[in-house]
């Protein structure tokens, strides 16, 4: 008996002390389960906190067919509440699985009837089944991503896939901030499968995703979108883009593309509608590019604003080709007037004076050929070939914005550079990131890239651009009552697939800023292949009035104080608009 007791004691000590860790681990493995605590995806808002992307809780309806006693009642209730055909529901409830040991077919214990069921529908369904004492159905909590503004700002906000991973727009570029980190918890379940809270062990709470605040102002976005819609109705272009920026900081205040799509109804949307053309499309910028060449020529001290250039009376032969001035044939024009009148020949001669390498350098300094760095995915850098790949007439075509591939973002950013008196900034579309408690965890301040041209060079360019928006210039219709506007029109023929240029297809644009002396807004309006009807086919007649309408509404929203001096100017331009040929 003593020896038996000794053996027994020895074994007891061995199990409870010597091998305790081993058996604890075995027990842990057998009984413990790791529960994931799902993190909530962060939201996206505009600069004023207007929600652009939020989460809406939904439920997945799941049935344990092994405990269902009245399948007909259950099927009928499910079919009615979930708006599914009764036959389909019955088919799912009859799903059987093969038992591993016996091979016998048994009712499945986990049948998903439907995902993404709204909370109110789930509540009503649960209440009915509870009343009828029908067992076997349970819910799993889930969430869907909701975009309250539908198609507004769709290309900027983007969307997530079923796994809640950002696919486009800010949802993708800021995915790391938005997704958060799932937590976990080790716990045990009893025989019935219920969690035993007392046995909870290690727990790491979930860290919900951060909120991304954009620089976009939805009120300005609404203005831009409504004017874009009106332009699409009037001119029916293939595509249209409008970008509104604050030049002093590089903040993007609004960005709209057409065609667009509703973020909440993405099935069947063509790829072309999902493209953020502002940063992914490449166009030949046309006459808006003349600002770059002129700035380069002034900065290199080859000319002054008053230097006279002979513009060949509208017909200039160079390298075996003939270059025309589209509006009018001019004799001598000052450098200032080359911009005001948008003379192709004048700017071609400035390009020749600059030379290939210097012209190329200034184009690159203005940011063309490189991505702007805006916090959106898929941005392209455009195309500007090095001088070694230029033909002998490139030196006359590039200065007027042909043989150059630029994105609308690059064009408006270049205009912002002039508005900033020569400073190139990185455009910003994300303003700040805040955590779930509201504390700011990251900001994106103004980012200066370089001083492209000196303020002394930028100033006369601004003077010329002011005159563009006058009776003398090509964009009188861009005027905004009470404000001095500076800007440049662009009317670029489109490249024909067979070579050369199409005679009846254009990309028309207007890029401008106001107030000219202390710019608060810079805006680009661009239409690809508009159908002008009775309107002349120029940027000054199609894009400039759209800019004017947007700017008039935008200055009111921003409470910018008008200057009474420019009301008189606007009055006289308005008379000209009604009575004159323009």
């Amino acid at each position: 008996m003593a020896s038996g007791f000794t053996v027994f004691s020895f074994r007891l000590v061995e199990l409870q002390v010597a091998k305790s860790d081993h058996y604890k681990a075995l027990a842990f493995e057998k009984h413990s389960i790791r529960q994931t605590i799902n993190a909530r995806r962060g939201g996206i808002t505009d600069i004023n906190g207007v929600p652009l992307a939020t989460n809406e809780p939904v439920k997945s309806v799941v049935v344990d067919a092994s405990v269902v006693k009245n399948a007909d009642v259950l099927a009928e209730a499910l079919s009615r509440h979930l708006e599914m055909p009764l036959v389909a529901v019955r088919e799912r409830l009859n799903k059987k699985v093969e038992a591993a040991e016996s091979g016998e077919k048994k009712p499945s214990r986990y049948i998903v009837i439907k995902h993404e069921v709204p909370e109110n529908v789930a509540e009503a369904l649960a209440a009915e089944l509870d009343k009828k004492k029908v067992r076997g159905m349970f819910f799993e909590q889930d969430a869907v991503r909701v975009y309250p503004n539908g198609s507004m700002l769709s290309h900027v906000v983007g969307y997530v896939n079923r796994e809640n991973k950002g696919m486009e727009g800010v949802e993708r570029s800021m995915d790391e901030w938005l997704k958060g980190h799932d937590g976990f918890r080790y716990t045990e379940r009893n025989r019935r499968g219920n969690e035993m809270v007392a046995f909870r062990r290690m727990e790491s709470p979930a860290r919900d995703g951060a909120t991304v605040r954009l620089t976009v102002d939805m009120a300005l976005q609404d203005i831009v979108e409504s004017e874009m819609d009106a332009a699409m109705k009037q001119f029916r272009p293939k595509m249209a883009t409008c970008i509104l920026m604050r030049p002093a900081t590089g903040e993007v205040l609004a960005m709209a593309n057409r065609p667009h799509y509703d973020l909440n109804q993405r099935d069947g949307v063509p790829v072309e509608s999902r493209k953020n053309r502002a940063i992914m499309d490449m166009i030949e910028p046309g006459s808006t590019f003349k600002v770059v060449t002129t700035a380069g020529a002034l900065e290199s001290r080859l000319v002054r604003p008053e230097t006279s250039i002979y513009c060949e009376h509208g017909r200039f032969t160079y390298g075996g080709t003939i270059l025309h001035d589209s509006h009018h044939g001019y004799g001598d024009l000052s450098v200032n007037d080359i911009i005001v009148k948008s003379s192709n020949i004048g700017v071609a001669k400035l390009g020749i004076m600059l030379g290939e390498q210097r012209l190329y350098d200034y184009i690159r300094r203005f940011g063309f050929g490189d991505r702007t760095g805006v916090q959106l995915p898929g941005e392209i850098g455009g195309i500007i070939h090095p001088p070694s790949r230029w033909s002998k007439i490139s030196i006359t075509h590039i200065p007027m914005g042909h043989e150059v591939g630029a994105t609308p973002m690059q064009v408006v950013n270049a205009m912002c550079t002039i508005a900033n008196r020569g400073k190139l900034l990185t455009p910003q579309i994300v303003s700040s990131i805040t955590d779930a408690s509201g504390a700011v965890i990251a900001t994106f301040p103004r980012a200066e890239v370089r001083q492209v041209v000196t303020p002394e060079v930028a100033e006369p360019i601004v003077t010329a651009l002011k005159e563009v928006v006058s009776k003398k210039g090509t964009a009188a219709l861009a005027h905004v009552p009470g404000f001095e506007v500076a800007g440049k029109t662009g009317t670029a023929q489109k490249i024909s697939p067979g070579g050369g240029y199409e005679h009846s297809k254009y990309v028309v644009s207007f890029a401008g800023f106001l107030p000219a002396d202390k710019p608060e807004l810079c805006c680009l309006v661009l239409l690809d292949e508009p159908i002008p009807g009775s309107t002349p086919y120029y940027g000054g007649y199609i894009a400039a009035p759209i800019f004017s309408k947007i700017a008039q509404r935008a200055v009111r929203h921003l409470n910018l104080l008008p200057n009474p001096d420019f009301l008189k100017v606007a009055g006289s331009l308005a008379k000209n608009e009604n009575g004159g040929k323009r």
Partner: protein
Amino acid sequence: MSSNRRKNANLLPVAKILLVAFVLLTIGGGALYYVNAKNEVHRYGQRKKELERELLAVATKDEVVTSRISKLCSYEALRKRQSLEREAFAKLVPVADTLVVRLSDRVFSPAESQLRHVSNPQPPR
């Protein structure tokens, strides 16, 4: 003669018995207390689980309502309402220059402080 000659042969060792009883009661009581405490832990665990469920339900309702509010207050919803109920809204009048009254900053003398009709000069009709 009886072999048992001790005086206190039939006396019970009360102290020892009491001691043993006390120890057994203590151990038993402790064991019962332990079981009771464990049950309470499980009960509180269940209560904690219920409260977590309630909290989750309230948080979920809050999220649902917040989501609905953001949809109803969105620019998209406002536009749809404006296009459907065009008659019910006051028509927005473009702010023309002739509809804006501008005041200067100059200081008014007492003679000028009487009420006056103020308007912009109207263009000849």
